């Protein structure tokens, strides 16, 4: 009786500087597996398809419910989270690769530091610390809160950067995710008080104008964030900001 199996072709590499290679694996089929549970199975018994002992595959993960963004990898050609990539819905052999837009640490694990650096750069937070209690902030209209909430779903997973043709080693572009965060924090009634500062950063090198409108990001985003709407809205905001800067305005903050 032949047993049903799951086949994998995994792109591996030993460390950041070594050359990538492909290795094939086969594991017994079980119902309701996701890519992560399959990788865990391979970790228990790291033997490749030709029966040779191999090393356990390295990957990144945390929440296992598609809210942390850590387990992103390229699955059958498309970047997505491996926790929500269900084996029963994938074409076999399942091809797993790291997201090459980022430095590969080992196997499927990448270093997304650049995204967190970008969030720091654009000040993707609301400064409320002070030496005394400032009291409650201004209220936010409910209609605005609803669309801003969609932007807050970003989990810095890196899929939009991987899909963007303008995020690469030849370009300084920071990518769609941090741009949309500027729109989120500028939409907040308290965050708005630092609006100008965030827009200025986006108007700097590697900023907003590096977008070439391929609009892959909005198609690729696993959380359905309207990234291209954010980009276009910020295009308007930075255009007006540049007018305020050049011609002068009392509304410049």
């Amino acid at each position, binding site marked *: 009786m032949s047993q049903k199996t799951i086949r994998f072709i995994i792109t591996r590499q030993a460390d950041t500087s070594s050359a990538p290679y492909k290795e094939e694996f086969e594991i017994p089929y079980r119902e309701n597996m996701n890519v992560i549970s399959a990788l865990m199975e391979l970790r228990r018994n790291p033997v490749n398809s030709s029966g040779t002992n191999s090393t356990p595959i390295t990957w990144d993960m945390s929440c296992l419910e598609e809210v942390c963004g850590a387990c992103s990898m390229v699955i059958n*050609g*498309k970047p997505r989270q491996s926790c929500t990539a269900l084996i029963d819905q994938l074409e076999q052999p399942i091809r797993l690769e790291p997201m090459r837009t980022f430095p590969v640490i080992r196997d499927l694990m990448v270093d997304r530091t650049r995204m967190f650096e970008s969030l720091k750069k654009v000040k993707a937070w609301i400064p409320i610390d002070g030496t005394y209690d400032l009291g409650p902030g201004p209220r936010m209209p409910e209609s605005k809160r609803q669309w801003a909430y969609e932007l807050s779903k970003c989990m810095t997973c890196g899929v939009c950067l991987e*899909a963007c*043709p*303008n995020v*690469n080693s*030849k*370009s300084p572009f920071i990518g769609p995710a941090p741009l949309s965060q500027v729109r989120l924090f500028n939409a907040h009634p308290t965050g708005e008080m630092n609006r100008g500062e965030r827009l200025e950063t986006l*108007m*700097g*090198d*590697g*900023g*907003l*104008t*590096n977008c*070439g*409108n*391929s*609009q*892959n990001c909005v*198609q*690729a985003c696993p959380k359905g964030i*309207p990234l*291209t*709407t954010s*980009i*276009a*809205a*910020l*295009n*308007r*905001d*930075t*255009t*007006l900001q*540049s007018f305020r800067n050049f011609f002068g305005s009392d509304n410049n903050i």
Partner: protein
Amino acid sequence: MAGNREFMYRKLHSLLGVIPVGIFLIVHFVVNYYAVYGVESYNSAVQFMENLPFRYLLEIFVIFLPLLFHAIYGLYIAFQAKHNTSTYGYFRNWMFRLQRWTGVITVIFLAWHVWETRVQAALGATVDFNMMANIVANPFILAFYIVGIVAATFHFANGLWAFFVTWGITVTPRSQVISTYLTLGIFVALTFVGVRAILAFI
């Protein structure tokens, strides 16, 4: 302002593609269309354009300088992209790729076109119906001209779409879809005017 240079260059690049380069493209094609009405009409239209007051100033500031900036900075932008339409075969990603391809084709075509017409005129040649008829008598050159015209009209129409996004005019997905249809119409109309005019020289 030093830190903002890229922002300014990019916005300027987008603007110059429409005003004045895009406007010039339309004027150029419309004047060319006189060829459809016959040799006499075309020659008198060319003479009218040649005898415009402040001709050299207009040529330098409305055509050559904006076009050169748009072309050179555009090449820099075009070769920065790492195309991925094989993985992400979406409509807009294809437009992104075609925008860069047609830009490069247009630069190559224009270098040839300006050499053959404007530079030759400066060297003493007469620009008239016969000049163009001689040029496109070669079927390969005619094909090259048609490719150049279509590349230019596509690049202008799709660039106009991108201009609306880049300057923050079309923000919602719906407005961007409507402007896709609008610019598609502009592409078809301008391509007709351009190709019909060049075919009049055969």
